[in-house]
């Protein structure tokens, strides 16, 4: 039997969710023994591969690059997981939404907003599932390592991620 192919992606988030994943410490090795990590900001792989079984996506969809990446992820992966509050409901990445894009850019860059070398922000930062279909959600900011472990254990065994209430609270 081939081992499941796991990917992790970092969209517009603070990388805290990936830190939380690393905070699995020793358990992370256990997880990695059960699968192949085929794409991740933690690994030096340039292109998102085809045939991914499970992908954990951190961060909201906040710019054009994110949006394009989200499309690629959906096309090339079987099970897409929104990892953490930013991916699940926009959270901190979406704090700019009430003010609107122009006000946000003005506040950050003053007179001269960046040109084409920086990814164009979308008018609003949105949760992943408002851009592509998402198969499982893991709230938390960041989701505690224990939550990630539980979720991955289920998914790697091909079971649905039925987490108890205390494991799905936001924040």
């Amino acid at each position, binding site marked *: 039997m081939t081992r499941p192919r796991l990917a992790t992606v970092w969209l517009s988030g603070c990388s805290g969710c990936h830190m939380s994943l690393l905070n699995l410490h020793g358990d992370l090795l256990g997880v990695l023994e059960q699968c192949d990590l085929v794409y991740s900001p933690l690994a030096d792989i340039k292109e998102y591969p085809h045939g991914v079984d499970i992908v954990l996506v951190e961060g909201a969809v906040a710019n054009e690059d994110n949006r394009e990446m989200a*499309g690629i992820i959906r096309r090339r992966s079987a099970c897409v997981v929104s990892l953490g509050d930013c991916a699940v409901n926009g959270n901190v990445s979406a704090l700019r939404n009430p003010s609107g894009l122009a006000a946000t850019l003005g506040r950050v860059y003053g007179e001269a907003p960046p040109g084409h070398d920086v990814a164009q922000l979308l008018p609003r930062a949105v949760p992943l599932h*408002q*851009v592509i279909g998402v198969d499982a959600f893991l709230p938390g900011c960041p989701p505690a390592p224990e939550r990630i472990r539980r979720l991955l254990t289920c998914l790697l065994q091909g079971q649905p991620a039925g987490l108890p209430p205390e494991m799905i609270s936001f924040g």
Partner: protein
Amino acid sequence: MKTPEPKNEKPTVCGGGLKISVCLGSPCLASGAEGVLRALREAWGEKPIAVIGTGCMGPCSRGPMIRIERDGYPTAYYERMTPQAACTTVAAYLAGAAPEQGRLAPDFPFIALQTRVVLEQCGRIDPCDLNSARAAGGYRALAHAIGKMTPEQICCEIGASGLRGRGGGGYPTGTKWELVRAASGRRKYVVANGDEGDPGAFMDRTLMESDPHRLLEGMAIAGYAVGARDGFIFVRGEYPLAAQRLGAAIVDAGKAGLLGRNILGSGFSFRIRLRIGAGAFVCGEETALMASVMGRRGQPVIRPPYPAQRGLWGSSTLINNVETFGCIAPIIRNGAAWFRSVGTPGNSGTKVFSISGDVATEGVLEVPLGTPLRELLAMAGGVSGGSFKAAQTGGASGGCIPASHMDVPVDYESLKGLGTIMGSGGLIVMNDQRCMTDVARFFMHFCQDESCGKCAPCRTGTQQAARLLDRIAAGEATSDDISQLEQLCRFMRETSLCGLGMAAPTPVLSTLRWFREEYENHVRDRRCPAGVCAMEGTPCRD
């Protein structure tokens, strides 16, 4: 707005045997009736013709309307009068002719085919003249009721008439009166609901502007029947003319001993006060209305207790629609059996409809309940600008009737069977140039704006439903959005606190029922079949 108040003039035919009535309802005033009245008065003064201002004659979109009565001749209605045209017409009459220009056919269906019970004196009497109303039978029923009937008998008579509330729900009026009558407590109140906030509804305005005494009389009879000494009329703020005429009528009736202390020497006292709304649709809902009357924020509270149990200032309160009160005097005068003979079993009496939209003549129609929709349309001269597509009943709380059901008898149950409601009587006719998703979107935005914000399902649900409909209109929606919209609508209907939120989804569910393929055109083909929705957006979901 300053409106002319016609001077008290005797509505008798004098001099040349000519009586001219100029409609001074708001629609006719808006199209220049004031100038017509002034020109006629300046030209002829008091003699040899009587020129009186009246309320609405019915075909409002053809205003300014005038009516010319001459001894020995059929009554003639003239439409779209200018001051000059009116003077020319009257001059011709004085010379013995009856000009064709602007004259409606003698059997003009909009007028000829009406069965006027509630509106019987609208457009006939001078609404600002108590004598004019009394000469036409006004307050006779009140005198009879307090002179010859006991409160029990009145409640019984109203119950036997089969009258149902005209405010939308169709609750049996006699039952409601009896509940309030039987309620204990020293103080009781009678409230007339003249909020009429539904888009496309203007029946109650017509009655309040054209025959205010009819409402006062109905309320006074109710007061006597249920044992109340105080009444309130809640008039929506957008109806200044109605409020003004009602206010004057209350004063006049008080001076004549028909309201106030010791009415007609009977020992029964009843005082009526006006309350003006501040522009919230939800204040038509009875508990919100009462809150507003008491000077509180106009938002609904949970029922039970119903107003009949605990209403204004904790006392048992009778709330009826303006038109419901308009039915009372004729029932007392002619008897319950007569009222039942009009309409159909279970739906006795008449109903006033305000018909507007894509029809040849917009205005106010009164017909027996159970009249087929097709006949109503025919009375209004048929559909204009295209073929019939649908008719919206019940405004933002109602649904539409498609062409395939044009023969439906317009009564409470039949409309319910088609997924819509009678509502208060607004009837909006739409031709095939209209987009039904756009119609649903309009009404959902209306409900979103009008939600009082108290309960979560209505406040938040209307916001989300309006967004989903915006996406559909912009060609950005997916089929998931339609199912989410449907789910949301069912949810709001089940869980909202008051009738506004419960009924807000009706236009959507109704258009989905009859015109689902139009929604699918918007979503699947990104196309608006009627060419109404702009479809500017691009799909933003993969």
